């Protein structure tokens, strides 16, 4: 992980004194053209190699997915779906490269309790900073795409960094570099949107009327986008969220609960203090003691 200058950060987890002057600038996008993907997994191999992760050999589960899910070491994963298109009767092999979408409004960052464990650079990349991560798993609950994974051995959260270290020195992400069909391309947002337009026009001319760009507004857009042949049905691509947004439960927890909770605690302490000041202590009187002694003496005599 590149260590960014503080001025490059648009958002910092668990930090209310964020630098309001920093705006998104020179935003980058990784565009994944699902229609061009051949499922070779070069991206997965490149990811693991560049980031020096060591995924253990798993077990076969009668699918092309390998491993079967994202893991703390496997930050990107080809998810294979055999889709029978009802309108054409064709069998379509949908292969989606899953991984962090680098949301403009990241749920992981919103949920994170550790200051500086999740940051968002001005170029839009959302990054986990292992040194500050405490491994609580709140980011997992905050993420609308079910992406972060907690390492049992390290006790840290991991996910795709969009190769922030490579991007910082003007390189594209390792997966994009390794992709043999240019299904993964990387560049500025404007470049990528223009590129996606061309691809969508091409797909539409070839009969994919619903071809389109996946850049969900529910998370204020993403810095990883898909070109889908069936953009009207993202869920057929191994359950890609149709309208992803930060769960209202997380918003409630990190919003009103947080503020009213602390206010209630402070209020209770103040009420107690005022009560004591107004009423003074509730003391036992000498006559209470004498009454008690008389009661006990009477019992003793009986």
């Amino acid at each position, binding site marked *: 992980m590149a260590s960014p200058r503080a001025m490059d950060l648009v958002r910092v987890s*668990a*930090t*209310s004194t964020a630098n309001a002057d920093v705006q998104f600038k020179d935003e980058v996008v990784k565009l994944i053209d699902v229609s061009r993907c051949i499922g070779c997994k070069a991206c997965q191999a490149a990811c693991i190699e560049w980031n020096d992760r060591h995924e253990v050999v798993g077990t076969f589960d009668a699918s092309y997915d390998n491993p079967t899910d994202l893991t703390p070491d496997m930050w990107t994963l080809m998810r294979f779906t055999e889709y029978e298109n009802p309108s054409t009767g064709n069998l379509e092999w949908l292969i989606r490269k899953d991984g962090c979408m680098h949301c403009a409004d990241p749920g992981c960052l919103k949920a994170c*309790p*550790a*200051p500086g464990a999740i940051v968002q650079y001005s170029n839009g990349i959302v990054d986990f900073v292992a040194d*500050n991560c*405490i*491994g*609580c*798993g*709140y980011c*997992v*609950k905050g993420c609308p795409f*079910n992406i972060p994974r*907690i390492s*049992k051995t390290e*006790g840290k959260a991991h996910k795709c960094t969009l190769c922030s270290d490579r991007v910082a020195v003007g390189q594209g992400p390792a997966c994009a570099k390794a992709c043999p069909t240019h299904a993964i391309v990387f560049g500025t947002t404007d470049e990528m949107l223009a590129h996606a337009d061309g691809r969508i026009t091409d797909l539409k001319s070839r009969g994919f009327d619903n071809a389109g760009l996946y850049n969900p507004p529910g998370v204020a857009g993403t810095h990883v986008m898909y070109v889908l042949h069936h953009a009207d049905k993202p869920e057929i691509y191994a359950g890609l969220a149709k309208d992803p947004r930060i*769960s209202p*439960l*997380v918003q*409630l*927890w990190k919003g009103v*609960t*947080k503020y009213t*909770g*602390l206010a*209630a*605690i402070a209020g*209770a*302490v103040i009420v*107690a203090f005022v*009560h*004591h000041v107004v*009423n003074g*202590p*509730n*003391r*036992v*009187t*000498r006559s*209470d*003691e*004498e*009454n*008690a*002694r008389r*009661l*006990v003496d009477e*019992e*003793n005599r009986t």
Partner: protein
Amino acid sequence: MSSSVHTVRETDATAAQGAPTTTVDRYTTGARINHWVTAICLVLLAISGLALFHPSLYFLTNLFGGGEITRIIHPWIGVVLFFSFAGLFLRFWKLNLWKAEDGTWMRRIRDVLTAHDENLPELGKYNAGQKIVFWGMAIFIIILICSGLIIWDRYFSSYFSLDTQRVALLIHSGIAILAILLWITHVYAAIWVRGTFRGMIRGNVTGGWAWRYHRKWLREEAAKPRDTTTSHYH
């Protein structure tokens, strides 16, 4: 059964000119240890929980040795609290059953809060407020341990769907706030009503304290047969 009521000659200022003062045993050594283990756990849980609840309180993680240790230790303290409170529950649940006089006490809450204890009915070992704290804590701790296990990422979260975990997280923090409010009530009541702490520290209270706040309980204790060999005459 020996009585828990003793007559003690004390020279401290509360005793009337060196006249013997009555004391009443309220908590056994076991009950007091059980209580303070629970109390320490609850305070540590509140501090570590609040540290991860609001960023402004994250500095509290330093008390535990950092964020990671706080994250690791919090659920384990919760497990200790659960069993420790279970001990308190088994000791005291019968004494906390709701009685007719508790309703009267609740209706005269104004007298309670203005220390007009003479207008309140005679009470057993616990008043309605203490009973509410007792049952409230029992319910909250059950909810907290259940929701806490669901969000205990290291061991259990993977058995639950993400939405279940999100619900558990919301419930856990909301109920924790309510438990802290209940705890503030509990501690404040013990501070406000002078002479209460010694019940949980020395194990006994003065007869006057028992007469003023828990007279029915004092009558029951006084009526128990006395065992002269254990009478505490100093």
